[in-house]
């Protein structure tokens, strides 16, 4: 059986090697064959190390298997494992992924002393009162008055934005940036958003319309799928 069908296929690309591992055989068989293949390969000259992308097809590798495979590939220090690509992920991981990329829609008033924390994007239909706080790992959209604190991208996503129908926040936080309301009494603004301005290196508040060219990939799901 093993003689008839190649379990390991190697292809050279511009970015290094791509290693296809058959996804219907056992891990041990594939491991043995890869070992043989690597022994056959003798790079005598002093070459720079070649990056290898490992395509696993519909195979799931646990952490131990990944480490073993990586050690095998990097054993003779001709190659290094750049990336493991698999069509499958664990359910747990998928759920986490889903949670982080969903828009959570909620209708309530966040009052003084209350904290609302969500994973992913938050769509709040209601107010955030002074002393109240909303935190999300993604973007925050508020259909209502934002008078308290909003913290978007709490896991460090600097591309996150905060949008509100009426903005008069006591603080805006995005990732590790914080901006606060001025000390003088000011009127709030309608239909605006807060985002990080890379050039000024701070949070700026601007009209919602600027989002269409400054955050083109706002629709969170695709963005996070791409960023992993």
């Amino acid at each position: 059986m093993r003689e008839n069908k190649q379990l390991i296929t190697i292809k050279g690309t511009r970015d290094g090697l791509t290693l296809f591992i058959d996804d219907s055989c056992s891990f041990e068989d594939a491991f043995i064959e890869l070992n043989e293949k690597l022994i056959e390969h003798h790079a005598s000259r002093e070459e720079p190390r070649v990056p290898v992308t490992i395509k696993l097809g519909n195979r799931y590798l646990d952490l131990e298997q990944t480490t073993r495979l990586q050690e095998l590939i990097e054993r003779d220090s001709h190659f290094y494992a750049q990336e493991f690509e698999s069509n499958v992920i664990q359910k747990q991981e998928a759920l986490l992924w889903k949670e982080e990329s969903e828009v959570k829609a909620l209708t309530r008033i966040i009052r003084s002393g209350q904290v609302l924390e969500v994973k992913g994007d938050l769509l709040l239909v209601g107010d955030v009162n002074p002393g109240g706080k909303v935190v999300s790992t993604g973007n925050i959209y508020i259909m209502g008055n934002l008078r308290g604190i909003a913290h978007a991208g709490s896991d460090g996503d600097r591309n996150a934005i905060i949008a509100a129908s009426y903005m008069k926040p006591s603080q805006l936080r995005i990732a590790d940036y914080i901006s606060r309301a001025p000390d003088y009494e000011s009127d709030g603004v309608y239909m605006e958003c807060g985002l990080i301005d890379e050039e000024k290196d701070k949070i700026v508040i601007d009209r919602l319309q600027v989002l269409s060219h400054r955050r083109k990939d706002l629709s969170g799901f695709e963005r996070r799928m791409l960023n992993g």
Partner: protein
Amino acid sequence: MGEAIVITSGKGGVGKTTSTANIGTALALMEKKVCLIDTDIGLRNLDVVMGLENRIIYDIVDVIEGRCKLKQALIKDKRFDCLALLPASQTSDKSVGTTEHMKKIITELKQEYDYIIIDCPAGIEQGFQNAVAGADKAIVITTPEKSSVRDADRIIGLLENKEIEDPKLVINRIRNHMMKSGDMYDVDEILQILSIDLIGIVIDDDEVIKASHKGEPVAFHPNSKASISYRNIARRILGETVPLQSLENEKGVFQKVKKFFGIRS
């Protein structure tokens, strides 16, 4: 079967006790059977405002700890037969008693009275938890000051988790000229922030202070704006639709005539 209403605010000094006394008195004026409960244990005031201080023999802590029967601790008001007061203790502290004790007392009082008005202590600790435990409804008191509105907001948030109907709002101590000049929140701003139903507004009135100094709730005499306000609140509690009082001070015939002809002063 009666109804228990807790009067609360979070912040101290906004007029919980005064409001309790006056709403209670106004309800009693309409011939409802009313029992006031002071739950501010250790800092009791309600008996002083009602002028019943020297009639206290037993208090709520005696009831909780079983030294007397509930009926023995109730003080009948000197003006109305249908009004009673369950005073707080002055010697223990706020943490005395549990929510279970309060629920039991209130259930017992509900058999006898139409309205049980509970005066809540300031703060959000055990005393607050006890006071709201047995209540069916809540009235939140705030003044047009920022700090007081903030605390009211917090209290409304805490009440959301309890088995209580949506709280109603009383805005107390309104100073019209300051609201107009923007030095204080105005009624609309407060309602926008708190987004709960308004059940009454009370103007800051010297008569209120005079009356509580005398130990006679201001609602007893219908000669001041505050008194009318409290009576209106009581009528709204009974389900009547009463328009809000005008905040303007009508100064005399001349003003009235001007108003009649639509001339703004």
